[in-house]
């Protein structure tokens, strides 16, 4: 008998008609599922990389240099009073968070849905000794990994363009992985609810696009009316931007605990909800 079979005793779906809100049953069995996605991606990595980073870079270059020439310097709050930064640096530090969000969302929606619903890959996996919870975990980490890969490539280009040389960017990297994790968890909720690909258009246009404008990616949040700012302060993307932007400017972010806790709360709640709705979808 093989090793997994020998280890496994009671990690299947729990009792008859257990609540979909029961505690997650996660194990290392997620790893072969993650490896499966990695193997598919390795075959398509280069073309997909071009697609993943070309668009954000075009935005950055067109907007950053074009608008940057109009706007010039922009004033942001620093630890010791307001600081002037070039617009391109402001935009780059916000748009890298946006790219992490979009790459993770795209993978956890369109690609995960293809595997779950169209190709029935998940059904095939569940005929082997791998539970649904571990599949959802694998998809979540996979989408976050892909987002980190995109982010890394964009960071590389930003470094090459000389937009920022802050050594603190090294710290931005793991934070951006966290941002990818947060948004893949949220996206998996909508994946669990989707009947078809059309559904995801709503998610992107009604949820992600407004959030981009309300999170200080393109312009400082101070521009917004107070009522809108109250909402904006609790959006996951705006918290991510406030953690990452100072690192681009070689400064330490303020209110780290608050921003981190907001992101962690989104992640934890979203993963649990995604898991429950996916269990409901599969009736396990």
């Amino acid at each position: 008998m093989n090793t997994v079979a020998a280890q496994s005793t009671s990690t299947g779906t729990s009792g008859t008609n257990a609540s979909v809100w029961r505690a997650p049953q996660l194990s290392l069995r997620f790893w072969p599922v993650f490896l499966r996605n990695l193997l598919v991606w390795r075959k398509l990595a280069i073309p997909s990389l071009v697609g993943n980073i070309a668009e954000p870079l075009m935005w950055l270059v067109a907007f950053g240099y074009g608008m940057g020439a109009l706007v010039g310097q922009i004033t942001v709050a620093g630890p010791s009073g307001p600081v002037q930064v070039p617009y391109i640096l402001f935009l780059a530090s916000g748009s890298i968070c946006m790219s992490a969000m979009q790459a993770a969302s795209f993978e956890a929606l369109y690609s995960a849905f293809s595997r779950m619903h169209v190709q029935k890959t998940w059904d095939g996996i569940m005929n082997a000794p791998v539970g649904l919870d571990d599949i959802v975990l694998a998809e979540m980490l996979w989408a976050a990994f892909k987002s980190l890969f995109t982010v890394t490539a964009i960071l590389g280009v930003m470094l090459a363009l000389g937009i920022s040389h802050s050594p603190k960017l090294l710290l931005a990297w793991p934070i951006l992985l966290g941002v990818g994790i947060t948004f893949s968890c949220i996206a998996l909720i909508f994946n669990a609810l989707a009947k078809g690909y059309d559904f995801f258009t709503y998610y992107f246009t009604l949820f992600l696009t407004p959030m981009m404008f309300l999170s200080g990616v393109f312009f400082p949040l101070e521009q917004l009316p107070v009522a809108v700012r109250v909402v904006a302060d609790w959006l996951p993307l705006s918290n991510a931007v406030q953690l990452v932007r100072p690192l681009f400017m070689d400064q330490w972010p303020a209110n780290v605990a608050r921003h981190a806790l907001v992101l962690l709360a989104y992640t934890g709640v979203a993963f649990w909800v995604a898991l429950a709705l996916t269990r409901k979808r599969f009736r396990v």
Partner: protein
Amino acid sequence: MQTAQTAPKITATVSTTLPPLFQVHQLCKRYGDATVVDDLSFEIGPGECLGVIGPNGAGKTTTIRMCLGLTAPDSGSVHALGLEMPRDALAIKAQLGVVSQMDTLDPDFTCAENLLVYGRYFGMRDAQIRERIPALLEFASLSAKANARPGELSGGMKRRLSLARALVNDPKLLMLDEPTTGLDPQARHLMWERLQLLLGQGKSILLTTHFMDEAERLCNRLLVLDHGRKIAEGTPRNLIAEHLEPDVVEVFGVGALAVAESPLRALAARVEVSGETVFFYTANAAALLQALQAHPQLRTLHRPANLEDLFLKLTGRQIREEA
């Protein structure tokens, strides 16, 4: 579990003396008001091939899903290999091989990669799986297609790859949900031959099918399901003997339907009309055939009663709305 492993070559005749490999007891499943599986019990012995037949919507796939712990039953129990579903679902599935109704092959992988990736789900090491791949491809008659992707394969090849994939963990019991649906006769015969080979190696099989010749050829025992209930169980031969007259005379052609209402009717134990064909079920076909000579315009077919007759008798000839 140990007994099954160490038992000598198992044949169908001795299987009843060994403890069952798989036991389903009083399984029930409702979706809303609809009872999909109703008080279903059965067992599978080591080396046995159990066929589950029934019309579409009879509850076959739901039963398999409950056997795999993918659907929780409302009541009843599933025991396998000394373990219990769904508590030990993963430990049980580690020793099962499953071919579902729809192919779930990975379209982006070659045949060999499909086997490798699937083996990993069982916790097997890459080296261990790679060692098995040539034999699995050989078994599926796909050695020449090791580097082809599923999109390049015919329907029969895909099903055989699915079967090979289900064998990657060397399971004791295979669960096959309509393994030959949609295949041409050649591909179906090749699949049958492979399944016979597996039975010869002592593996057990649970099979659902719509093909009565498949059920008759492969299965030691049959379970007839309708509306989620078991309506008959036994060996194919016994079921036919128990429920049907030994001979069938089919009569068709102009005026066939009138014959069904004529005094000829008395020569058969039972008469059924389906479309333009009249079926006479009888223990004494000679007298009936003699009498039918008076109607030379009619065409007749005299044959022994088969599983299809049994199936239609038990589940009816009408087309179901859900079918």
